[in-house]
């Protein structure tokens, strides 16, 4: 199926190029080109930005990874999970435990294995996955709201367990995050005087690149999964469990695997969170964290990887920005006074944004982007004098976009069967 996509898309590009010249060709490739531009900008940014912005950026990178994991589960599989905070906690705390040397702080003893940080990071992700797998007897059998509440239980029970396991987690006081390092290169401020193009590279410059690489890998993997057989199976499970089972999809198995992948993503996000904050305590991973992640993926557009990125920038970036500039913004006031503080303003903003998006733009930011891009593509096609060669059908890219967004948001025009329908012209085009 993925080959048919690429074939038909290639045809679409050819048609556009033939019809509208280089400008239309550029329009058609806009997503790819803009992605590359954004990546180049992100690579260059640490040379110019202050530490504050790098810190914000690294928090966002971590959130993006967690949000991608959640969007696979909630958006693509249709399984509501409020347990993301728990898997973040497992990842963050496992990393700290695995990478730290055992230490004694006063009367408290903190265990640790003292593994190399990279090994600890990989193991932390695996442990989160294991936690997700252990939960699969519940997660694979329940759906919708039942799973939502059951996973909520995971947060509460998990927090209790983690708070009690003091030697590993540090209990209520938490524990410090060991610094990350890769083959002897420390991601921390050191005296090496390491600098690029005259810009000294400290802790957050280095972490920025770590985060960026991990985000790219995470998004790439998720993109591959969602565009291939498992992704289609998951969407089929979401749109009609019985229909999916009839076509031979192992519904329970795919649900369990979606939960596994999602919890591993959350684990990695937890490791990045631990690195960005510098210390972790089980207390930090409350239900509110789970809610925040749900807000991220909803604002971005459920099931969309690009949307997970955009949502993270908004939900994680906004409070930090408002906090930084609270003194300059007239409608904000200092904490403790009767006015609206920056943290509260950010909460109002994203709570209201969630409501408004569900009401007016259920496909989220990704939906807006799709509409814009497909509109431009259509315009580029119309500018050419020749009729589209696929016999008037929409370009495959557009059909796909509409199906991805609308089938989920249920705007009604395409409906649950939309994914199948939209693929038909693409298949026909490549066949004919």
């Amino acid at each position: 199926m993925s080959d048919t996509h690429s074939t038909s898309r290639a045809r679409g590009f050819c048609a556009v190029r033939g019809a509208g010249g280089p400008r239309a060709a550029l329009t058609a490739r806009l997503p790819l080109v803009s992605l590359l531009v954004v990546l180049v900008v992100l690579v260059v940014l640490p040379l110019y930005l202050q530490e504050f912005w790098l810190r914000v950026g690294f928090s966002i990178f971590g959130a993006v990874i967690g949000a991608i994991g959640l969007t696979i589960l909630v958006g693509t599989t249709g399984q509501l999970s409020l347990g993301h905070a728990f898997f973040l906690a497992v990842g963050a705390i496992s990393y700290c435990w695995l990478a730290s040397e055992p230490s004694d702080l006063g009367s408290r003893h903190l265990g640790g294995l003292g593994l190399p940080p990279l090994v600890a990071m990989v193991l932390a992700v695996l442990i989160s996955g294991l936690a997700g797998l252990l939960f699969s007897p519940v997660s694979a059998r329940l759906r919708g709201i039942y799973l939502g509440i059951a996973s909520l239980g995971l947060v509460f029970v998990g927090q209790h367990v983690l708070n009690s396991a003091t030697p590993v987690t540090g209990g209520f006081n938490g524990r410090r995050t060991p610094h990350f390092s890769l083959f002897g290169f420390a991601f921390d401020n050191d005296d090496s005087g390491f600098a690029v193009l005259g810009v000294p590279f400290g802790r957050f410059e280095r972490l920025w690149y770590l985060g960026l690489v991990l985000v790219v890998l995470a998004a790439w993997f998720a993109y591959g999964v969602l565009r291939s057989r498992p992704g289609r199976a998951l969407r089929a499970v979401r749109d009609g469990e019985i229909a999916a089972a009839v076509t031979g999809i192992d519904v329970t198995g795919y649900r369990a695997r979606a939960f596994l992948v999602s919890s591993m993503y959350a684990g990695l996000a937890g490791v990045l969170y631990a690195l960005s904050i510098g210390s972790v305590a089980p207390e930090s991973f409350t239900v509110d964290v789970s809610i925040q992640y749900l807000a991220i993926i909803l604002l971005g557009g459920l099931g969309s990887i690009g949307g997970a990125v955009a949502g993270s920038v908004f939900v994680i970036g906004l409070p930090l920005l408002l906090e930084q500039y609270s003194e300059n913004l007239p409608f904000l006031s200092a904490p403790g006074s009767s006015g609206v503080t920056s943290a509260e303003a950010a909460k109002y903003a994203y709570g209201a944004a969630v409501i408004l998006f569900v009401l007016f733009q259920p496909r989220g930011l990704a939906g807006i982007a799709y509409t814009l891009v497909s509109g431009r593509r259509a315009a580029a096609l119309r500018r050419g004098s020749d009729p589209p060669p696929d016999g008037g059908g929409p370009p495959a890219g557009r059909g796909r976009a509409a199906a991805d967004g609308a089938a989920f948001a249920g705007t009604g025009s395409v409906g649950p069967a939309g994914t199948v329908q939209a693929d038909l012209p693409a298949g026909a085009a490549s066949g004919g």
Partner: protein
Amino acid sequence: MTTFVSLLVNGISQGAVYALIALGFVIIFKASEVLNFAHGSMLFVGAYLTARLVGPVGFAAAAVIGVVGTALLAVLVERLLFSRVGRGTGLATQGQVAALTIMTLGLDIVIATDLTRRIGSRVLSLDQPWGTGAFSVGGVGLAYNRLIAMGTAAVLILAFFAAFRFTGWGVALRASAEDPEAAALMGIRHWHVSALAWLVAGGLAAVAAVFLTGSPTPGLEPSIRTVAFLAFPAAIIGGLDSTTGALAGGVIVGVAQSLVAGYADHLQFLGGDFGGAVPYVVMLVVLLARPAGLFGTRELARV
């Protein structure tokens, strides 16, 4: 033995209040197919309105205004937000359920942030006329607040079950939950049913809030919102689409919590402060055995 009976009675009285909240989840779920995560905020609104008005107009009037105000707010939420997301046939897809549920979370964030900001670090008192006193019969002690809560909850729940069974609305709600399309064809207006469901749920939440802020708790604090997180497992344990289940779930959660807190000394091996997690532990165990809850309808799919 006295300790045990005392814990049991206290647990049941607290469970009755949870049952009021859980009943709200169940009614809304039956009417709208979503779980209202903003229910914690509804509790909050009810208690806040009452606490604010108790000075000027006295407790009785304040409580009535609190309950009515919260009920109207719930209807407003249903009319302005929920009914707009198209569920014409009443058959929401898994995706829509997720989106709507996340919307209730967004609503919860907005309301809770606003009220928390208004309260600040204060503890507002609702000045319940029954005060903070307690009585004891044969060594079994119970706060008056808990006793009155239990009585009120019993009356309200009985009234609700009667309405559910005998009134036109109750029949319409059950029909609508059973088969939305057929119900619509029989002339049942879905919006009537669901608006009334939200009205009742909002009112019940506010009543529960009045008792939750009474003795032995010091008064209204922003943490009242977390009580809703104890009522979720109650609704799930009983089965989300069963009103009887909500009652049973509420009592189970209340009793389990009370017993764990009472025998904390013997339960040290479970870690300190296990009381907060116990409703969820019970819920997970129930879900493992019965994925639809104790009284919930099992979904059958013939392939």
